[in-house]
C-alpha cells in the first residue's frame, strides 16, 4: 500500500471514521491508531517489517524502564550501560540493513546457490531509518532525565509505529509527540479541514509536480549522450523534483496527523529561500537536522577531550571553530551515509560539510571583504545573489545525491562541465526537452508548477500562510478551490504504467 494509492486513501478514510466515532470511549482512539499502524506496516511492507518493529519496540520499551530505574537508584554505570544498549541496538539493526546486507553479496550468492535463503536476503523494513532514530533519542533522553520512560507497552508501540510518519518521517521525539496519543481527541473542523487542505497540496506536489519533473529528469540522466546544459538543467529540475516529492509526502503525512489532531515536527521551512548552505540545513529535513544537532553535534563539540584539544589553539575564535568544524564534518558525513551506502553519499556529506565549516572558519574574512567592497547586506540584489549562489552550490551536491554511485556522479559532472559552452543554454527554449518524455504543453505546465512551488515558499517565508488565507474566504470560494485541487490531481497527475505505485524518494532512504 503506497501513499499515492486509492487503497491508502480508503484506509485513511476508514481509520479517521473509526477514530472519531469512538472518541467518547476512553483509550479507544489509541487502539484504533495501533490497529491502523500494524495493519499499514503489514500491508505496505509485510510480516517481516512488522516483526522487526515489534521486537525492537519491545526491547526498547524494556531498556527504557531499566535506564530510568538505574538513574533513579543512582546506579550511574548501569544507567549508562543500559543507555548505550538502547542506542546500539537500534543503530546496529539500522546499520545491518543499510550497509552490511548490501555488502555481503558474495555470501548471499553462495547461500542462494546452495538453495537456501538467509537473513541476508531480507529487504529493509519500512521506516527503519526514521523510527530507529526516534528510539535512540528516547533512550538518551531518559538517561538525561528529559522525560520519564513509557510504562505502557501498547502506548510505546503507538508512538513508534505511528502510520503516517513511518513512511518518510518526520523523526518524532517522544517528549513532543507521545503525550498527544494519551488524550482523546474530539472531531473538529479546525483539525480536519486544514488537515485535508494540507493533504491535497501534498498530493498536488507529488503527483502533479514531482512525478512530472521526474519524467524529464530520468530521461535526460538515462541518456548517455546528454551533455552540458541539458545535464545541468536536469540536475536543477531534479532539485525541484526532490523537494516537491519529499515535502509533498511530508505534507500528506502532516495533513493526516492533523486530521487526527496529532501535531508532528515540521520538516521544511521554505528551503529555497536559504541564503547559505548552513541556513538550508536549518530549513530542509528539519527533524533529521535537529536529531543530528542534539545527539551528535553538541555532544561532539562539548566533548571534554575535544575541548582539551581545542584549548591548545592560540586564537579564541579558532578554538571554537575547531571543535565546531570537526563536529560539522562528522555530522554531515553521517547525514550523507544515512541517505545511502555508496561513496557518492560520503562525498555528498563532505561537500556539505565543506561549505558549512568554511562559513564558520572564514566568517571574519568574509566580514572584512564585504566591508571593503561596501556591500549593503540589506539590499535586495545582494540577498537575491546569496539565494542563487546557495542554490547553485547545493545543486552541484545533487549530482552525488542523485547518482547510483560515485563513478556515475563524476561522469555526469564531467559531461556537464567539460567543454561547457554557454550557448548550450538554448535547450531550454528550442524544444530540445520535448525529446525527453514530455510534450511542449506538459513542459510549460512543469515550469508553471515550479514557479508556484517557489512562490508559495516565498509567501510562507514572509509569514503569509496560504491555508489561513483560504480559511478566511467564503464557503463557495473555499470549496471551489478544493474541487479545483482534486481536479488538478485527477487531470494533471502523472499516472499510468510505471507510475501507479511510484514511491517517494525519501521512502527509499
Amino acid at each position, binding site marked *: 500500500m503506497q501513499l499515492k494509492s486509492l487503497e491508502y486513501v480508503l484506509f485513511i478514510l476508514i481509520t479517521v471514521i473509526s477514530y472519531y466515532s469512538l472518541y467518547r470511549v476512553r483509550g479507544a482512539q489509541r487502539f484504533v491508531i495501533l490497529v491502523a499502524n500494524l495493519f499499514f506496516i503489514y500491508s505496505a511492507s509485510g510480516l517481516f517489517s512488522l516483526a522487526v518493529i515489534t521486537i525492537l519496540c519491545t526491547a526498547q520499551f524494556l531498556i527504557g524502564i531499566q535506564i530510568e530505574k538505574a538513574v533513579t537508584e543512582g546506579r550511574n554505570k548501569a544507567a549508562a550501560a543500559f543507555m548505550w544498549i538502547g542506542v546500539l541496538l537500534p543503530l546496529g539493526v539500522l546499520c545491518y540493513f543499510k550497509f552490511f546486507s548490501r555488502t555481503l553479496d558474495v555470501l548471499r550468492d553462495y547461500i542462494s546457490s546452495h538453495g537456501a535463503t538467509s537473513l541476508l536476503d531480507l529487504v529493509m523494513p519500512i521506516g527503519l531509518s526514521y523510527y530507529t532514530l526516534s528510539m535512540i533519542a528516547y533512550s538518551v533522553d531518559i538517561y*538525561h532525565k*528529559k522525560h520519564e520512560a513509557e510504562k505502557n507497552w501498547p502506548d510505546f508501540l503507538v508512538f513508534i509505529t505511528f502510520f503516517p510518519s513511518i513512511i518518510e518521517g518526520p523523526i518524532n521525539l517522544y517528549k513532543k509527540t507521545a503525550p498527544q496519543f494519551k488524550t482523546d481527541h474530539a472531531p473538529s473542523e479546525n483539525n480536519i479541514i486544514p488537515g485535508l487542505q494540507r493533504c491535497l497540496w501534498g498530493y498536488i506536489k507529488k503527483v502533479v509536480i514531482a512525478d512530472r519533473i521526474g519524467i524529464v529528469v530520468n530521461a535526460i540522466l538515462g541518456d548517455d549522450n546528454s551533455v552540458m546544459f541539458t545535464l545541468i538543467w536536469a540536475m536543477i529540475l531534479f532539485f525541484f523534483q526532490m523537494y516537491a516529492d519529499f515535502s509533498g509526502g511530508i505534507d500528506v503525512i502532516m495533513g493526516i496527523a492533523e486530521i487526527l489532531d496529532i501535531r508532528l515536527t515540521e520538516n521544511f521551512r521554505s528551503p529555497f529561500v536559504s541564503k547559505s548552505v*548552513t541556513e538550508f540545513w*536549518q530549513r530542509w529535513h528539519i527533524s533529521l537536522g535537529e536529531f543530528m*544537532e*542534539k545527539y551528535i*553535534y*553538541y*555532544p561532539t*563539540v*562539548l566533548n571534554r577531550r575535544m*575541548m582539551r584539544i581545542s584549548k591548545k589553539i592560540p586564537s579564541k575564535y579558532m*578554538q*571554537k571553530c575547531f*571543535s*565546531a568544524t570537526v563536529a560539522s564534518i562528522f555530522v554531515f558525513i553521517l547525514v550523507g551515509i544515512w541517505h545511502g551506502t555508496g561513496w557518492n553519499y560520503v562525498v555528498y556529506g563532505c561537500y556539505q560539510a565543506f561549505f558549512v565549516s568554511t562559513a*564558520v572558519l572564514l566568517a571574519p574574512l568574509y566580514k572584512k571583504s564585504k566591508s571593503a567592497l561596501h556591500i549593503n547586506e540589506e539590499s535586495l540584489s545582494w540577498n537575491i545573489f546569496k539565494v542563487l549562489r546557495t542554490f547553485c552550490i547545493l545543486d552541484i551536491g545533487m549530482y552525488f545525491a542523485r547518482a547510483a554511485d560515485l563513478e556515475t556522479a563524476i561522469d555526469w559532472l564531467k559531461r556537464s562541465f567539460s567543454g561547457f559552452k554557454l550557448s548550450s543554454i538554448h535547450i531550454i527554449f528550442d524544444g530540445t526537452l520535448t525529446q525527453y518524455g514530455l510534450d511542449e504543453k506538459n513542459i510549460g505546465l512543469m515550469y508553471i508548477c515550479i514557479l508556484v512551488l517557489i512562490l508559495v515558499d516565498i509567501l510562507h517565508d514572509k509569514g503569509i500562510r496560504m491555508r489561513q488565507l483560504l480559511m478566511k474566504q467564503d464557503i463557495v470560494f473555499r470549496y471551489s478551490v478544493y474541487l479545483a485541487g482534486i481536479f488538478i490531481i485527477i487531470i494533471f497527475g502523472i499516472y499510468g504504467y510505471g507510475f501507479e505505485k511510484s514511491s517517494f524518494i525519501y521512502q527509499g532512504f
Partner: protein
Amino acid sequence: MEEKILAILKEIKPGVDFENKTSLIDDGILESFDIIQIVTTLMDEFDVQILANDIEPENFNSFKAICDLVKSKCS
C-alpha cells in the same frame, strides 16, 4: 552577572534585541555555532560546566533563560 551575560550575547550576535526576544532558538535567531560560542564563552567566563544535554530551546530561548541556566550551574 546578568550584565556580563548580556554583553557576551551582544558581542557574539550583535543587533539582536536580547532583552525582549523570547524565541531565540524557535525563530532561528541563534544558530548552532552561535550557541557553541555562547556556551563556551559562558563556561570560560563563569567557570561553569554546561553540558550538551543542557542545550535545549527552553534554556536558550531568552536572555532570562540563559541567565537562569548559568545561575543553576553556579549554585
